[in-house]
């Protein structure tokens, strides 16, 4: 414990963006929330609930992007299946919310969710048991993705499935889950998924206050995840991870069991994705197998690519920007959106391998060289 403390307190090479980022993030959150709750509707500065939910969604995506970046940007593992972990977390939350409906479903059945009633299931399947307890559901939300990631990673990394193979395998993984969750026999509501939620831990999901608090919780968790990740990656563990990315065999030859490092990083990333999913569901009000579709998972990767992989802040910025662009484009000219998205993929990979943060870094570098003292030259 004390060890943990000093680990955090130790100022050693904490990312210089972390603090500003956290401050800005929380500031915006507070302002927006306050503006929504305490300003009258017709005030010029009023922030509509629509905006709040939208922002909340973006932040969930940001967290998801963070998860993708941690393994792709830092460890070079391109997962095209992170949507799976996101969705699993989401389903755990969804199941909890479903149970919360209780007998207020359209059929007024005390325990069974509506979709089970009209497909006349007799009693609750075993995996729904306990899901009416918030804490249990939340444990599941991190445990299930974590476990899946562990099993998959354990198998994949030990047998040294790497690079493109791994990407394709992850894609197959999420695709298989997609098919599975579409089946109504699975007991997850099939194509319709889980929806029509009423309340979460006793708070009415439709109330603005609930939405705002969900939004704030998301922001806080994002900040926390961000800081923890930052610390992990700047620890020696982080250095090993980078080492694995750049020269895996070399790292093995100096005595690191790279597969275990990868597994645990993968699990960590999956858990974050799961949390993001769990936060996402109550805010958008539905979870269905669509979240498993491989396309989604690939889209997440492009958020990171745009923002700049290998920098946590880049992932966050990328996720928010791309999704904001999506919201706007799809509203103005839907057809153009897919062209734009596609073009973004090509352009970024061709011309911005480091993403927006890359550009930023270049600008900074320029400014540095402009200044007189040139650390490296002086040493060389």
């Amino acid at each position: 414990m004390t060890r943990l403390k000093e680990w955090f307190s130790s100022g050693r090479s904490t990312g210089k963006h972390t603090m500003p980022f956290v401050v800005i993030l929380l500031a915006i959150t507070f302002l927006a929330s306050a503006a929504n709750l305490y300003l009258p509707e017709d005030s010029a500065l009023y922030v509509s609930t629509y905006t709040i939910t939208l922002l909340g969604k973006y932040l969930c995506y940001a967290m998801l992007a963070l998860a993708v970046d941690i393994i792709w940007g830092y460890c070079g593992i391109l997962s095209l299946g992170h949507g799976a972990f996101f969705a699993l977390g989401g389903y755990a939350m969804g199941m909890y919310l479903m149970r919360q409906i209780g007998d207020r479903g359209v059929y007024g059945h005390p325990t069974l969710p509506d979709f089970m009633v009209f497909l006349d299931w007799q009693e609750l399947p075993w995996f729904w048991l306990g899901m009416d307890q918030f804490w249990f559901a939340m444990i599941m939300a991190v445990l299930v993705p974590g476990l899946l990631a562990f099993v998959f990673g354990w198998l994949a990394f030990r047998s040294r499935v790497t690079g493109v193979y791994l990407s394709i395998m992850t894609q197959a993984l999420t695709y298989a889950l997609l098919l599975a969750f579409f089946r109504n026999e699975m007991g997850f509501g099939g194509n319709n998924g889980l929806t029509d939620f009423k309340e979460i831990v006793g708070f009415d999901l439709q109330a603005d206050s609930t939405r705002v608090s969900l939004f704030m919780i998301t922001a806080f968790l994002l900040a926390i995840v961000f800081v923890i990740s930052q610390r992990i990656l700047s620890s020696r563990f982080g250095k090993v991870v980078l080492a694995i990315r750049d020269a895996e065999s070399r790292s093995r030859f100096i005595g690191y069991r790279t597969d275990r490092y990868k597994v645990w990083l993968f699990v960590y990333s999956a858990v974050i994705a799961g949390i993001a999913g769990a936060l996402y569901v109550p805010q958008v009000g539905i979870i269905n197998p669509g979240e498993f579709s491989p396309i989604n998972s690939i889209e997440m990767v492009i958020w990171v690519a745009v923002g700049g992989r290998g920098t946590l802040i880049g992932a966050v910025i990328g996720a928010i920007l791309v999704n904001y662009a999506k919201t706007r484009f799809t509203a103005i000219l839907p057809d153009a959106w897919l062209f734009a998205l596609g073009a973004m993929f090509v352009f970024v990979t061709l011309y911005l391998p480091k993403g927006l943060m890359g550009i930023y870094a270049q600008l900074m570098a320029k400014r540095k060289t402009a200044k007189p003292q040139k650390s490296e030259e002086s040493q060389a």
Partner: protein
Amino acid sequence: MSAIESLRETFRRDQTWPMLQSSQANVNVDKDVILYVEGLNLSFDGFKALNDLNLYVNDGELRCLIGANGAGKTTLMDVITGKTQCDSGSVFFGQNHNLLNKDEAAIAQLGIGRKFQKPTVFEAQTVFDNLELSLKTDKSVLPTLFSRLSPTQIDRIDEVLKIIGLEQHRFMLAGALSHGQKQWLEIGMLLAADPRLLLIDEPVAGMTAQETERTAELLTSLAGERTVIVVEHDMEFVRSIARTVTVLHQGSVLAEGTMDEIQSNKDVIEVYLGEEQAEANGAGGDA
């Protein structure tokens, strides 16, 4: 299912994680032979890379391996360091460590360092980090996560930096180093881990004369408390450092002895020295 098992395996109470066990379980060398390679065979579909190869290396010795391309020098190193599985034979480190049932990491933790033909360092990280990563410490996940540099470790790194002459570049990205410097850094990384046995593959390829000289000094200085095996084409270099030379040919040992013995050996002259000129030029060529 397999998840459960792997979990159980990983979290068994009655044992410390294999990677937590002290890697430096003492190497038994009272026959003062540190490396036993016996009857090693390996073939890549048809082509016999190693052919009943036997090799014994004494503790603290500096041994040079020479041989034409495809003689199996690098493959031998691959097998010793666990990169490649051999078809048959046995490799023992000291008398008590069978290397064939260990993976690269375990072998490295036993104290066997390996330097590749073309230098591989972690280009995206600073020279300092490179050395820190290769320090001889507990290299399993959790300890690494919470580890902090101790003063002694920092001293050790500085020491190594001095040895390989990169003090000024400690905060430079390894990627920005010159070819020669990278070679040195890689050797430095081996030193930082202070191994019992170093396998060094063409250390002076592409080095300038002075660099080569210094490398020679370094390696000779290493011999003694460490065992060093060097693969090199540059005959001059070999002559300058070698006490014992082993000639490999078509995956098995052709001859062994001092440089002079080797040079007077008929079959060697036949199969190897004939080509040596070309080889040397080749080596000079890409310098």
